[in-house]
């Protein structure tokens, strides 16, 4: 089967292929992305394959095989794709089929047929089988043969990883129209909502997934996205959070059933413990408490227990703090301040955990909106962000020739100069003789750009001066006034609380006026009229501007030369 389909024949979906879970989505004729459930009714389909007597199990069914059939169950393999054995971290696959070196690639030794012997199945082949199952679930649901997809990948997925994924998909009958970065897909998912407003903003996508966490800082300017920084941490992950619960329940179990032994020391017990802990963790995202219940956990002893959310929040504290630090670090790496971030999109399955949103939110000012289920009723399901974005992108490009798509992805198109400072106008304010700056185009806006601003004029109208200037963002820090000592502190407890609520310094985002670009006079403005400024900045930094009174005649046109190339 050819993977290069005639655009008219394409049936394209979005695929999010994660180490732990995958999902599929399509965009309806109304332009709405919908996540598809597989035959088991799962929208979060475990990226797991398991072989029992030659029969291939997939998704949730395969995942439950981790208890009895771990050796023939392949999980957490996405990051192995397109890598040599030397550069992979086999840790996540500890409780399933272990990756082995196989020529220049990675394989799993599994009994995937009815025959006794094990086959070395390469990670590429495993991926093909996994994608084939996803494709068939999507085709079943849509009643059409799916043959193309936009697939999300982490921002640090290398070219060779993409190549490997592309050919695995091709084998599965899927033409990869485009790989898009997971965080960008998340932003697109939000921006594609019908009520979304297109404003310039800088946002963070913080993804706490199953085996890793990835944080990306993205500038969104006029609906165009630029990645400013990305950081990754393979030790802050959902499975580490599971481990926290595993240790907790194992200890509880040992306390009660000393003779039965430590369930962590028996592979099968550990597998049961792990599966149950993951569902306990998920339950705690909604409920204030959750039940743990495993039949024959260890030594033939059944175990049930409960845990409340506060306990879990406490147990996971270090990881939540580490994730928060990672987010702050990404902002630092982008040379930005927390005050520059207008939104944090929490992505990845663990972002369902309220404490994750709370911890990250606490590290940012109130002006930063945290988009997560526990903080915003309109938040998109963090597990579905990537796939929704992919489905939207798929619908946007599915009619293009492959050649056309490829051309548009070339650096010739995608690499473009970005403004290093904001450009705006000087206005009157009460106290400053210098005037105040108001941005029209923000820093990190890709060129060329065109923006229009509507500006109030003096009440009496008359002749006005419009000064175009550069402005750079400045964080003004005000140290708190040393509080006058409280009159008297009778009891000791009051003393202690005083120390704690040491007043924080006040941090504000302000503008420093930079160099001037042009001056324009608009004469005879009517009382109460408004002025419109239209500026175009070309790639060579030349500025063409039009200044006019709204509803008035004519206006002033001006041009500032760019840099000679």
């Amino acid at each position, binding site marked *: 089967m050819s993977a290069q389909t005639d655009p008219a024949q394409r049936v394209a979906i979005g695929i999010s292929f994660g180490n732990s879970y995958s999902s599929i989505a399509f965009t309806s004729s109304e332009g709405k992305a919908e996540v598809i459930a597989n035959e088991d009714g799962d929208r979060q389909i475990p990226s797991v394959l398991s072989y029992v007597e030659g029969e291939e199990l997939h998704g949730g069914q395969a995942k439950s095989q981790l208890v009895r059939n771990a050796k023939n169950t392949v999980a957490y393999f996405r990051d192995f794709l397109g890598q040599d054995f030397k550069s992979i971290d086999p840790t996540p696959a500890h409780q399933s089929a272990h990756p082995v070196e196989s020529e220049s690639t990675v394989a799993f030794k599994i009994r995937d047929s009815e025959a006794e012997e094990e086959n070395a199945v390469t990670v590429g082949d495993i991926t093909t089988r996994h994608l084939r199952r996803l494709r068939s679930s999507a085709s079943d649901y849509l009643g059409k043969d799916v043959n193309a997809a936009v697939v999300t990948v982490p921002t640090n997925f290398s070219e060779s990883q993409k190549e490997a994924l592309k050919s695995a998909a091709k084998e599965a009958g899927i033409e990869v129209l485009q790989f898009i970065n997971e965080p960008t897909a998340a932003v697109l998912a939000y921006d*594609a909502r019908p009520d979304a407003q297109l404003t310039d903003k800088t946002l963070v996508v913080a993804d706490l997934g199953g085996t890793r966490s990835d944080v990306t800082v993205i500038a969104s300017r006029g609906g165009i*996205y630029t*990645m400013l920084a990305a950081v990754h941490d393979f030790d802050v992950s959902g499975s580490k959070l599971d481990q926290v619960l595993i240790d907790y329940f194992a200890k509880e179990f040992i306390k009660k059933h000393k003779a039965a032994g430590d369930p962590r020391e028996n592979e099968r017990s550990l597998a049961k413990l792990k599966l149950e802990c993951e569902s306990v963790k998920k339950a705690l995202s909604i409920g204030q408490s959750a039940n743990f219940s495993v039949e024959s956990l260890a030594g033939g002893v059944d175990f049930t227990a409960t845990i409340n959310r506060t306990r879990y929040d406490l147990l996971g504290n270090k990881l939540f703090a580490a994730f928060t630090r990672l987010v702050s670090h990404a902002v630092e790496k982008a040379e930005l301040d927390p005050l520059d971030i207008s939104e944090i999109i929490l992505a990845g399955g663990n972002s369902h955990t309220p404490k994750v949103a709370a911890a990250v939110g606490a590290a940012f000012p109130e002006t930063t909106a945290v988009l997560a289920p526990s903080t915003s009723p309109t938040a998109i399901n963090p597990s579905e962000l990537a796939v929704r974005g992919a489905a939207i992108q798929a619908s946007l490009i599915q009619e293009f020739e492959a050649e056309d798509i490829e051309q548009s992805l*070339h*650096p010739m198109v995608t*690499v473009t100069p970005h403004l290093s400072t904001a450009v705006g106008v000087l*206005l009157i304010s009460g106290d400053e003789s210098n005037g105040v700056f108001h941005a029209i185009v923000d820093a990190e806006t890709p060129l060329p750009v065109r923006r229009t601003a509507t500006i109030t004029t003096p009440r009496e109208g008359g002749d006005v*001066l419009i000064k175009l200037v550069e402005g750079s963002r400045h964080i003004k820090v005000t140290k708190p006034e040393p509080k006058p000592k409280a009159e008297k502190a009778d009891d000791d407890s009051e003393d202690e609380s005083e120390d704690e609520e040491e007043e924080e310094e006040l941090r504000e985002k302000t503008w420093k006026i930079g160099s001037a670009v042009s001056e324009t006079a608009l004469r005879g403005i009517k009382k109460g009229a408004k002025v419109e400024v239209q500026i175009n900045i070309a790639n060579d*930094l030349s500025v063409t501007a039009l200044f006019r009174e709204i509803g008035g005649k004519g206006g002033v046109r*001006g041009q500032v030369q760019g840099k000679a190339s």
Partner: protein
Amino acid sequence: MANVEINLPLPVLPEGWAGEKDFKPVGSLSKTNDRKIEPVGPHFLAYARRVRHKRTFSEDERIQAQANVKSVEEEDPDDIDEPEDPQMLLREAKDWKSQDHYAVLGITRHRWRATEEQIKRAHRRKVLKHHPDKRAAAGGTEDDQFFKCIQKAHEVLSDPVRRRQFDSVDEAAEVDPPSKKDTQKGNFYKLWGKVFEAEGRFSTKQPVPKLGNAKSTKEEVESFYNFWYNFDSWRSFEYLDEDVPDDGESRDQKRHVERKNNAARKKKKTEDTARLRHLVDDALALDERIKLFRQAEHAEKNKRRFAKEAEQKRLAEEAAKAKEEEARLAKEAEEAEKAQKAEGKKAKEAAKNAAKKNKRVVRGAVKDANYFHGAGDAPASQVDAALNDVDAIIAKIDNTELATLAGKLNSEKDAGKIKEIFKAEDERLGLNSKSLA
């Protein structure tokens, strides 16, 4: 597309502003950064269409563009592999407390300076290299002891609290103070600078002031030592705790160990505070700048004293001179006065004599004019009256007038004319003397 609403008023056009067609370019925009935009979403597609519209790109342009891509995923140039000590690779995880976590992760070049990201990257590299599955694949044993050491190192170093505990007792990060001899070779700033930089890692207050150099100002040096004498250290010593026995042992035993540990921590902390104090004392004692500042201060004081003394001397001399001058002037004045007095006396004498002479002339003229009697001997009464009247005139006039009168009379022998002269004088004075009538 995007429209910006600005709700502050524009400034009024200043008097005398001029620009060709009301527009004046005054500068240009700062230089840009080339970045890759994400080829995603409807706005990107519109953009791509505009960029590609009726254009084909040359191979050169394509290559150039490719070269301009700055990836946010760029490899850290800092990712180097430090050589691994074969002895270290044989370590057992149970001895994790005594392992050098930085050496295990291969970042001894950074130690306490390592950023969280450097630790993360180093850990990742070590995991990829030493994962037991890989050892097994390479034909080695499935021995995972060193891998566990790696995990322990990461566990400690990635937790800010535990990392501080380890950094507190990381002997390899210590920089011993140099010997006196070494610093005397002119290496004071280099050697002690390193010591203070290392000690500074324990400071709660950051940044820590630097030792500086021979050019540092007195204020800088003073605030440096002030900082170190008021050092606020987070260093603590729980990392060296004796293990508290686990559940097996009795509660009392446990409590005993805990108490012992607490006491040991406190003791070590006190010792460390004293150690640092001594260290600062030593540095201060050896710091040439302190001596120089003191010398300079001394010199300054001396200079001031000298200046003061010189000034005093000058003032005294001046006072003496002034006094001398005053005396001289007084004497001169006195002499002048004396001379003047003498002169005055002489003049008076002369005037007196002249007056006498003039009086004599005047009186003689009376006689020459026959006492205004006309011809014949004048009777005694006429003589008396004439002499009295002339005396009255003489009494009424001063010496100058007398001299004038005498001058007029001096060469006059004619009695009538003499009488005329007297008569004129008598009338001028309004005496109406009878003898002249």
